[in-house]
């Protein structure tokens, strides 16, 4: 046992662990050594066995050449890396637009003001539609449908249209995240704000929303990771992103290594982001626990 609370420092100075405690510590360290040994040996056995199984399979040599040609991978790296800058740019621009649009949608859906009734209906319909249609379909519809309208001044730039499609779909998801955050704030907070004379809008802006946003940061980061990956879908419109760049290379050589290169580049962005998400989630759980029901 460790003495975590040093409330009484004077008596602690003269404290030595008893014979019983020393014995316990000894047994505990034996137990933990044993656990480590078991964990290590089972990991080596299972993972080693898996690797051995794959390497010893009859098609391994061919597989290695087509998917893990390191020299070729290095050769195509600059091309694919250039492609992924498109994904990153798209993600940055889209996430800003998504945040704004989603917040407006969530506010429209949660407001009770009579004047906002049409917006509330529109927001509900919007969310229902764009949450229910596959992103790929939206990209195709916007990417090929909008230029087909032939409206003058409307862009035919596939990158812009692809971004627009992603924004439309993700705003619906993110709006629901914001809305759930707003609804999760205890009604007593609104009552306290209103009792001080704050209007509905002021209570939302200064009391409810700041707490709601803090609470939904982890799921929002989750959506950001999903967004980065889904930007790859705009390649279907002919946008040269990492996926498209890899596809072009592969179609030239029939070697699939560029796909692996693209996958690794995506992972280099998404793995750190997931770690940040985990940490944010832990922090927010700890915060909510310490707040109790107030």
């Amino acid at each position, binding site marked *: 046992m460790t003495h975590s609370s040093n409330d009484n420092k004077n008596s602690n100075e003269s404290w030595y662990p008893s014979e019983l405690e020393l014995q316990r510590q000894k047994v505990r360290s034996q137990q933990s050594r044993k656990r480590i040994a078991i964990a290590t040996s089972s990991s080596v056995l299972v993972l080693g066995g898996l690797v051995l199984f794959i390497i010893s399979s009859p098609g391994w040599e061919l597989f290695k050449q087509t998917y893990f040609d390191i020299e070729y991978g290095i050769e195509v790296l600059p091309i694919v890396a250039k492609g992924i800058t498109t994904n990153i740019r798209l993600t940055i621009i889209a996430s800003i637009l998504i945040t704004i649009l989603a917040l407006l949608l969530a506010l429209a859906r949660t407001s009770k003001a009579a004047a906002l009734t049409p917006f509330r209906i529109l927001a509900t319909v919007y969310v229902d539609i764009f949450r229910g249609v596959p992103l790929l379909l939206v990209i195709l519809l916007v990417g090929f449908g909008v230029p087909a309208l032939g409206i003058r001044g409307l862009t035919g730039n596939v990158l812009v249209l692809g971004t627009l499609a992603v924004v439309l779909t993700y705003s619906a998801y993110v709006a629901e995240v914001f809305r759930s955050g707003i609804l999760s704030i205890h009604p*007593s*907070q609104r*009552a*306290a*704000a*209103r*009792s*001080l*004379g*704050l*209007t509905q809008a*002021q209570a939302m802006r*200064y*009391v409810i929303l*700041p*707490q709601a946003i*803090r609470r939904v940061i982890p799921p929002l980061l989750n959506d950001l990771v999903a967004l980065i990956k889904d930007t790859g879908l705009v390649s279907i419109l002919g946008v040269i992103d990492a996926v498209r760049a890899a596809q072009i290379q592969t179609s030239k050589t029939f070697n699939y290594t560029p796909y692996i290169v693209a996958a690794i580049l995506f992972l280099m962005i998404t793995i750190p982001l997931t770690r940040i998400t985990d940490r944010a989630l832990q922090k927010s759980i700890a915060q909510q626990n*310490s*707040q109790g*029901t*107030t």
Partner: protein
Amino acid sequence: MRPVLSIEKVRKSFGQNTVLGEVSLQVPEHTATVLIGASGSGKSTLLRCINLLEQIDDGAIYLDEKEITSPLVNVDEARMRMGIVFQSFNLFPHMRVIDNITLAPIKVHKVKKEQARAEAKILLEKFGLLDKAEEFPDRLSGGQQQRVAIIRSIATHPRALLLDEITSALDPVLVNEVLAAITELKQEGMTMVIATHEMNFAHQVANEVCFLHNGFIAERGPAAQVLQDPQDIRTKEFLRKVSLN
């Protein structure tokens, strides 16, 4: 003296459950009216009705002789002139203590930020919390949080202060520091309506005590009379049960 708050034949029910049945009450300026009664007797509901957090079913409530229960009255403006403190503090957890206090003065009463902060600091100092001004609420004890909630509700200079069992969530040691703060406000002449289970406190601070029973005022009168020489059998019974605890 003309009443700051006047409650006339107020009724309130939730579905089939009648919580207030024809409650009438006048609260003169600079006085404290204490509501006592068992849980579910309607004390909290009455306070929430006065603060317009609940809509009454019948009757009327007047603040400074103006009816605030009229649908033509701006609810926010009426609330601006009242303060309410809740059992569960309800501080804003994302704001520092000082910002909790200055939010309404700045946003609702359009007081300049520097002035609002200066006034808040005077109040914090008075209630022994000046060193907590820049802390977040979750760093404070329950008693400190409740005192901040009291300061927050008086920072807007309300005409009347409503206190809804403000010590029920506190341990006995912390109860006293909160009650001391209220006693001080009483001495300064704050008009108050207080729902409480602390009979000693009621005795100390009340000008008038109202005993509520099943949504009706069973007995009302000067504190000494109601608490020490109750006339109604239900008041006697209630006080006997309370003193056994």
